[in-house]
């Protein structure tokens, strides 16, 4: 097991493995998202209260979940990179930031599109919405800090520290609907015992969620490979790789 981890941490091995995973994850994501979208947007029954506007749930909820999930991954990878000085972890962390920021943005946009018919306004300053907006700023902060530091090794370590500090925001987002009584929907899907949602609605939602996951895996590995090539451009294996054979 340790040997496997050690091998995976070697840049060249990671580069090859990631290269093989990317197409699988990419195609998987595409198929699942298409299936989920068809099922959700066309097949699933309309909600008895909200009519068709509820269908935005199939984008909003997975995107919102991803925005939280990716942040945790980023902070964890950052911490690993910081403590054990593993270059790959640093790269994964920094490659995640823009993806996470886009999902956050997507969650915000779909949420406020949904808010207009539901609450009659694009935006209210309630706890969940505010904390999600803060999440966007945190992502932007991580990216800005990374961009501002010249030496990329230092930059990723600085960005990692910021990401770790920002983790406090995650439980706030998640529990905000319970801690404060807010306009936003309480937990519907993620209640442990029994989800209070019809199974015909749940399945496409879960398929979309898995599709988004695979999309993340594919893009983060792609970004990580690029970043890796750039950082290791002087090493022997990269030189051999780009040498025309």
């Amino acid at each position, binding site marked *: 097991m340790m040997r496997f981890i050690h091998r995976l941490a070697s840049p060249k091995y990671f580069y090859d493995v990631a290269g093989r995973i990317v197409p699988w994850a990419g195609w998987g994501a595409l198929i699942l998202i298409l299936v989920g979208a068809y099922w959700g947007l066309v097949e699933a029954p309309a909600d008895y209260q909200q009519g068709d506007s509820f269908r935005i749930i199939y984008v909003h909820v997975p995107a919102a979940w991803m925005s939280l999930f990716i942040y945790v991954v980023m902070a964890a990878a950052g911490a690993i990179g910081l403590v054990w000085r593993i270059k790959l972890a640093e790269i994964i962390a920094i490659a995640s930031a823009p993806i996470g920021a886009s999902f956050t943005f997507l969650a915000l946009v779909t949420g406020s599109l949904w808010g207009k018919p539901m609450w009659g306004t694009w935006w209210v300053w309630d706890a969940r919405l505010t904390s999600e907006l803060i999440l966007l700023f945190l992502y932007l902060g991580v990216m800005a800090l990374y961009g501002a530091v010249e030496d990329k090794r230092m930059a990723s370590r600085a960005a990692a*520290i910021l990401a770790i500090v920002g983790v406090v925001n995650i439980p706030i987002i998640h529990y905000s609907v319970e801690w404060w009584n807010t306009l936003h929907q309480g937990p519907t899907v993620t209640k442990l015992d029994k989800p209070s949602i019809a199974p015909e609605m749940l399945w496409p939602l879960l398929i979309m969620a898995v599709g988004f996951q695979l999309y993340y895996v594919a893009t983060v590995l792609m970004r990580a490979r690029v970043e890796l090539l750039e950082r290791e451009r002087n090493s022997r294996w990269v030189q051999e790789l780009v040498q025309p054979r």
Partner: protein
Amino acid sequence: MSALSTPRAMALLLRRDLLLAYRRRAELINPLLFFVLIATLFPLGVGADSRLLQTAGPGIVWVAALLAALLSLDSVFRSDFEDGTLEQLMLSAHPVSLLVLAKVFAHWLVTGVPLILVSPLIGVLLSIPSRAMPVLVASLALGTPVLSLIGAVGVALTVGLRRAGIILSLLVLPLYVPVLIFASSAVDAASSGLPVGPQLYILAAMLVAAVSLAPVAAAASLRVSLS
């Protein structure tokens, strides 16, 4: 002769920073002045409708406090970085996180405490009811150290960057938001005669967390920024 004990070194560092602040005593009242100016600019910009002011009052005081803290943050490490004394701190015989704690404490004494002292006056200017004043002071007393502590991490991360002033605010302001929300909601609640215990407890918990975590994070950030 062996090295001084760490608490003694911290005390000396605190003394040094206070001395430096005293040497620049004309600048000392700057954050304070800024605080007062913002709090008075708002009525000018917003118009002097006193019912409006009363609702907005606690928010304005707290936003002003937050910006005053933000503006004075730079002084925590910036000048030490520029003249090379920060390197000397990092190479000292004591744990860096404790030295950072001493520096942050000095910063709070110089910028936070005056705000607390002058806040009742501002409260009057913004027609905050007098029964809410003790809560206003208490929320500032619990909240401003948190601002200094979180800010120190941000400054430590950006100290190597030129013109970091604004990137700093991008990093730090999101983390300030919870403090702002709980503190101003405490004052709001007090103005309406509601209990304020929960909010103040949460602020106290934030303070404890910040005191124990922020110095470590700031020390790690400094190590990254300097190398």
